[in-house]
């Protein structure tokens, strides 16, 4: 980093060593800062899916909300929400997320890990699977809220005036020879012409996945028309892996620290 005096005259304090760090010193400095951040090592993310797809954008949105809050404590939460709504189209973070954010010590977004979509099961039922890796949550963090987020685009003329019934399930048990056992989390009726982010509360499911990773078999969604016909999520306008990066499905969880983090002695 750099060092300069408060009065801005570039006066260097006599006790402060002002020079470029040597390689090993820089490495030591990195180690110390990582320790402050509570990380055992420097993360090495694989950013092949694009650095700025929907999840990082959503998180950046939350970060900017926090930063503006730190800059101006006098501004009301509602005002910030309103400005967020007017500056972004469509908005990623909603008023609810802002409320969760105020109570959270950590927020984490999870990318969808499923490599292929099972659009048509043997029973001719369209469904789509989603999986998220929640195994690396730091100890002592408890989930206070979690959301599964899907982007819906306005669909083609075939369904223009129709409504869809979207069902979100938690996969309870998988079988090699038949369909998985499912637990219905939420069903929601959507207008075909509707466009924007859809949020589904998966707090209880996420808590189960954090506490017992073997039960993390992912989520499934299915869509039916008003006449009960099963259609693919793509036909219903739900953006999948082949869609725009900034509209990719993801999940987000809000955490509260339940234990005091103590750095180990070295």
């Amino acid at each position: 980093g750099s060092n300069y005096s408060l009065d801005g005259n570039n006066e260097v304090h006599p006790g402060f060593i002002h020079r470029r760090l040597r390689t090993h010193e820089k490495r030591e400095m990195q180690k110390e800062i990582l320790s402050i951040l509570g990380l055992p090592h420097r993360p090495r993310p694989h950013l092949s899916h694009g650095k700025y797809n929907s999840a990082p954008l959503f998180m950046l949105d939350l970060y900017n909300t926090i930063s503006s809050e730190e800059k101006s404590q006098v501004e009301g939460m509602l005002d910030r929400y309103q400005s967020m709504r007017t500056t972004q189209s469509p908005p990623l973070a909603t008023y609810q997320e802002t409320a969760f954010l105020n109570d959270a010590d950590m927020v984490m977004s999870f990318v969808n890990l499923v490599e292929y979509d099972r659009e048509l099961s043997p029973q001719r039922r369209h469904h789509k699977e989603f999986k998220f890796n929640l195994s690396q949550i730091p100890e002592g963090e408890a989930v206070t809220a979690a959301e599964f987020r899907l982007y819906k685009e306005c669909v083609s003329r075939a369904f223009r005036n129709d409504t869809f019934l979207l069902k979100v399930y938690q996969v309870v048990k998988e079988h090699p020879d038949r369909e998985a056992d499912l637990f219905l989390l939420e069903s929601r009726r959507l207008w075909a012409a509707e466009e924007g982010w859809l949020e589904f509360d998966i707090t209880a499911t996420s808590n189960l996945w954090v506490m017992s990773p073997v039960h993390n078999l992912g989520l499934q969604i299915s869509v039916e028309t008003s006449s009960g016909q099963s259609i693919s999520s793509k036909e219903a306008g739900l953006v999948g892996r082949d869609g725009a990066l900034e509209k990719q499905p993801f999940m987000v969880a809000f955490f509260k620290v339940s234990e005091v983090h103590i750095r180990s002695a070295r």
Partner: protein
Amino acid sequence: STGGKRRQQNRNRSTQPQDGSRGPGPADYNSSDQKTACRRHELYVSFRELGWQDWIIAPEGYAANYCDGECSFPLNAHMNATNHAIVQTLVHLMNPENVPKPCCAPTKLHAISVLYFDDNSNVILKKYKNMVVRACGCH
């Protein structure tokens, strides 16, 4: 211990405005004292200079700051001296070999938020408490 009369004088000195001929005002401390006095110094920790742009999304760095300087008598020349620091100074004056001066340390600390990727390309937004020194004082 001091007599009641002297204590009364001290009290007057601390509460009444002083002219140039009586007692030490802020201008009486020479500039070197002011320079070495306990105060906050700016120190920017740059994540960019640490070569972490690939996993830290925001911020680019933060003004961590640090406290440095001497906590020497009279402590009212310093910002935010605790009552105990005053006692510590007096004991130090009586026994400078064995008792250290009070410490120049943070009195107000603030949090920062850091947004970063983990190994699985998930994104974490975490609040870190007590990361930024807002004010220093003698403890």
